[in-house]
């Protein structure tokens, strides 16, 4: 039996409908339970002494004054923790040539970025731990700091890790066709230099972990604000020498993640190591300055790129030279080479063209490590691609929508393989563009722009098509040797009262995972969603899974839940058929009742079936299978990734006197395959767009040339606020993936992928009459005025 998705009136039709999130009510009542809300008996707090210099040898550490401070119990140095915690190396075998030095929980001998944890102070209160941390005296011998990406490989630049030979972490060149020949003979070649600023996630809940070690049980329990509990279980077990089965990671409510909380952080591992030593609960909650200096950063790229087009607008070649600085270590275990690698994989993504060359150069520097953050590499690739396409359109006098239509893969062309060797199962660039044009009323918008121009107002329309990588297979990490699960599992059981419990390996970070799972399971079994309780985020309880990353929750975790739910339905109906002297194929379950499939006539409520199975099993035939619990796992097999596509539009106004950009409206049409919960998908896209808008207009981590972080507070690192953000209209085209019955692809990163490119193109559309152009994000008033030639000092 398959689900008739095309029929919205089918029984139990919860997939495709907006149903409430089961976990939202507790959060609006302030009854969430985040890590910092948990207090355990004998719990102590750890605060870290962090490196004040970007690169320095540690000569000596004096902890006496700190140890004497009231409330302080223990002080740990890097050497202390190295005895109980092994270092790690953030490389993956399939990223050929990627290198990185061993990284310790606390710096040993050398500190390599401002904010690297050096000493841990444990006290009975956080306040005492923090105050005592200021009393630790670390004697540093300053070493030269490497802070510029583009000169990191120069002969006269110091090598950060002499054992590695140079500052090159990773380089990949991909070539397809003959780019040089295409460029040489093309009608027009347009080149540009792009820059995306260093960002960080600014989760409102800072990184948080509470770890207990119970030596009597030989069990470690970590309450962790994480996206990947099973990955963390492996990591803690491996580096603290505990059997994996004896590490339990519990992930309750998490206050925002966006990729920040999917990585291994030295201070969090140190907290676990300290719990192991002290055999009592140890809590670490990063403060905001620690968040800015030690959460992963991302997107610090500088790019030279060229596009060649024919007279009719056909793209002939794209050439991309991407550079990024990742800090002193490749982050464990996902590595810091993925973002650059994604730029190579994704540039030119929507377009059918032949000649492509892209190289990424990933270098070490003495700044906070960078790693995967929402929409990894996509906003960069989209900005490069869509920026070039708009510039090419302007160069040949073609409308930006028209040039895209002439180059996007035809909607009936799939499956296709892109020049970057990405395989697309089914995308809908043209249908999505058509829908966008309808939504924005393109001609009317152009008329409004022209009218505004007459009044001295400079408005711009920016379009950005994009692709997005979702539903990753082991090709993302597993093949490189990382114990990061691409498969996911779900166990679904029916309890005596007829209610259903589903345990899933994907996690809830606020995106609505549990609502999505509840409606999938409700439809799969045949109960109402309120009869389904979802349990996620506990490695001792849920099936093994990957958690939340690369937009996989709905596509992978949702399919596992659907298959487990349908298997449970089968088990229930087998028992029901025996009880009702019927044929299971002639029965169905609807809204918690076993019914006659043809007539819909109620035959038995599930609680009656539950009563019999659990309390009067003696009345059932001997040998009748009566396990009302089923587990299924799902992994994608046909494609390494399920690509989605979409197109965004930005309408904005540039004040050419002040350089201020005012966002007027934003649109996005997205094709994430089957939409399970329209409201949740739309809100994921809106939230993602705003994160992208932050990158386009405000967000930029600043370091000085010595590697000092200059803006480590929320007052100085600007994130979007309510007053600056536009209303956003979201539309959908649905091209379900054939890899699963559910047909869902990911939706959580699409907004972030395309928004910066749309804004850049809109600003440049507004500035075009002035002959001005911006390509360096964020597009601050200063950069806009410089582009206009109004500031030149």
């Amino acid at each position, binding site marked *: 039996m398959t689900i008739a998705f095309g029929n919205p009136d089918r029984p139990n039709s919860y997939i495709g409908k907006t149903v409430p999130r089961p976990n939202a009510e507790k959060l609006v009542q302030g009854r969430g339970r985040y890590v910092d809300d948990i207090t355990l008996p004998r719990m102590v707090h750890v605060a870290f002494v962090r490196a004040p210099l970007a690169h320095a040898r540690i000569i000596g550490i004096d902890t006496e004054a700190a140890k004497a401070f009231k409330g302080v119990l223990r002080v740990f140095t890097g050497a202390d923790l190295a005895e109980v915690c092994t270092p790690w190396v953030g490389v993956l075998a399939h990223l050929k040539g990627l290198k990185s030095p061993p990284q310790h929980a606390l710096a040993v001998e050398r500190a390599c970025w401002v904010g690297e944890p050096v000493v841990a102070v444990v006290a009975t209160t956080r306040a005492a731990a923090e105050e005592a941390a200021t009393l630790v005296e670390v004697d540093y011998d300053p070493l030269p700091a490497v802070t510029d990406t583009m000169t990191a490989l120069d002969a006269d630049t110091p090598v950060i890790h002499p054992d590695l030979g140079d500052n090159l972490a990773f380089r990949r060149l991909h070539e397809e066709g003959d780019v040089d020949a295409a460029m040489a003979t093309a009608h027009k070649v347009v080149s540009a230099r792009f820059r995306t600023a260093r960002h960080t996630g600014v989760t409102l809940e800072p990184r948080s972990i509470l770890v207990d070690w119970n030596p009597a049980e030989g069990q470690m329990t970590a309450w962790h604000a994480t996206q990947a509990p099973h990955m963390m279980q492996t990591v803690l077990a491996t580096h603290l020498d505990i059997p994996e089965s004896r590490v339990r990671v519990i992930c309750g409510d998490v206050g925002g993640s966006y990729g920040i909380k999917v990585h291994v952080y030295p201070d969090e591992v140190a907290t676990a190591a300290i719990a192991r030593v002290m055999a009592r609960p140890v809590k670490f909650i990063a*403060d*905001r300055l620690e968040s800015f200096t030690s959460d992963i950063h991302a997107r610090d790229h500088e790019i030279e790129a060229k596009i060649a087009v024919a007279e009719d607008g056909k793209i002939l070649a794209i050439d991309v030279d991407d550079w990024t600085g990742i800090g002193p270590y490749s982050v464990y275990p996902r590595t810091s080479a993925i973002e650059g690698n994604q730029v190579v994989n994704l540039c030119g993504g929507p377009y059918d063209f032949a000649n492509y060359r892209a190289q990424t150069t990933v270098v070490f520097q003495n700044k906070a490590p960078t790693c995967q953050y929402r929409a990894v590499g996509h906003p960069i690739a989209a900005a490069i691609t869509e920026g070039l396409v708009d510039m090419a359109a302007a160069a040949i006098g073609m409308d930006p929508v028209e040039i895209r239509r002439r180059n996007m893969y035809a909607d009936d062309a799939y499956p296709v393989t892109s020049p970057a060797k990405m395989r697309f199962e089914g995308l809908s660039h043209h249908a999505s563009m058509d829908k966008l044009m309808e939504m924005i009323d393109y001609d009317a918008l152009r008329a409004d722009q022209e009218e505004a121009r007459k009044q001295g107002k400079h408005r711009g329309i920016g379009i950005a098509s994009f692709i997005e990588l979702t539903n990753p297979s082991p090709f993302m990490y597993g093949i490189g040797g990382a114990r990061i699960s691409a498969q996911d599992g779900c166990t679904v059981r029916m309890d005596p009262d007829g209610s259903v419990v589903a345990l899933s390996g994907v996690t809830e970070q606020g995106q609505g995972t549990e609502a999505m799972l509840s409606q999938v399971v409700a439809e799969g079994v045949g109960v109402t969603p309120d009869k389904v309780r979802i349990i996620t985020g506990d490695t001792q309880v849920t099936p093994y899974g990957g958690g939340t990353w690369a937009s996989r929750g709905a596509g992978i975790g949702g399919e596992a839940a659907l298959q487990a739910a349908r298997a449970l339905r089968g088990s229930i109906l087998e028992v029901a058929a025996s009880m009702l002297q019927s044929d299971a194929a002639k029965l169905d379950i609807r809204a918690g009742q076993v019914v006659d499939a043809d007539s819909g006539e109620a035959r038995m409520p599930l609680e009656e079936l539950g009563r019999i199975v659990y309390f009067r099993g003696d009345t059932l035939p001997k040998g009748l299978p009566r396990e009302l619990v089923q587990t299924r796992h799902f992994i994608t097999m046909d494609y390494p990734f399920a690509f989605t596509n979409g197109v965004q539009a930005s309408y904005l106004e540039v004040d050419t006197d002040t350089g201020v950009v005012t966002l007027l409206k934003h649109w996005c049409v997205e094709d994430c395959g089957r939409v399970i919960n329209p409201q949740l998908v739309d809100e994921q896209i809106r939230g993602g767009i705003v994160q992208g808008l932050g990158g386009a207009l405000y967000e930029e981590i600043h370091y000085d040339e010595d590697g000092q972080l200059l803006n480590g507070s929320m007052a100085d690192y600007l994130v979007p606020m309510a007053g600056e953000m536009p209303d956003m209209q979201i539309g959908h085209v649905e091209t379900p993936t054939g890899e699963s019955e559910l047909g869902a692809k990911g939706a959580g990163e699409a907004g972030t992928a395309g928004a910066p490119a749309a804004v850049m193109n809109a600003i440049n559309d507004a500035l075009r009459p002035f002959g001005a152009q911006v390509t360096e994000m964020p597009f601050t008033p200063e950069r806009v005025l410089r582009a206009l030639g109004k500031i030149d000092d």
Partner: protein
Amino acid sequence: MTAVFLDKVDIALTVNGEPVEGRVPAGQHLVDFLRQALGLTGAHASCEHGVCGACTLRVDGQAVRGCLMLAAQADGAEVWTVEGLTEQGSSRDLQQAFVARNALQCGFCTPGMIVAAEDLLAQGGVPTRVEIREHLSGNYCRCTGYEAIVDAVEDVARARAGKGTA
């Protein structure tokens, strides 16, 4: 000039309508006192310097940053947190609107957002979307993109105004 700097201060206040007494470290912030001493974990510490609004509380009728006010300063004050507003039922419609509109994702900013929105709604009338956005600009949300929050607050303002004139 005071002779000694007190490192512990005795305070008496009402929290969510209940009398509370405490002996608090002089440097302890009000939000930490509520969270750690009283177990009221609804208000959250996030930026810890008054920018993000996640710790927003109602103190003597005003929306206040719990990370900028010391517990010692709350002596004699009337403090309400999201837990109290929930028990009292005064924000039920707003909370329901947040759930219905999915005006929260991770929920970390939500308690502060509710208190801040109530501060605006208490002024009466139906604020424009621009006014709602302006009023909530001191409350960061990193998940939703704000539109759903503005929708929820606007819906509640309309509904409350409708009831008021009926």
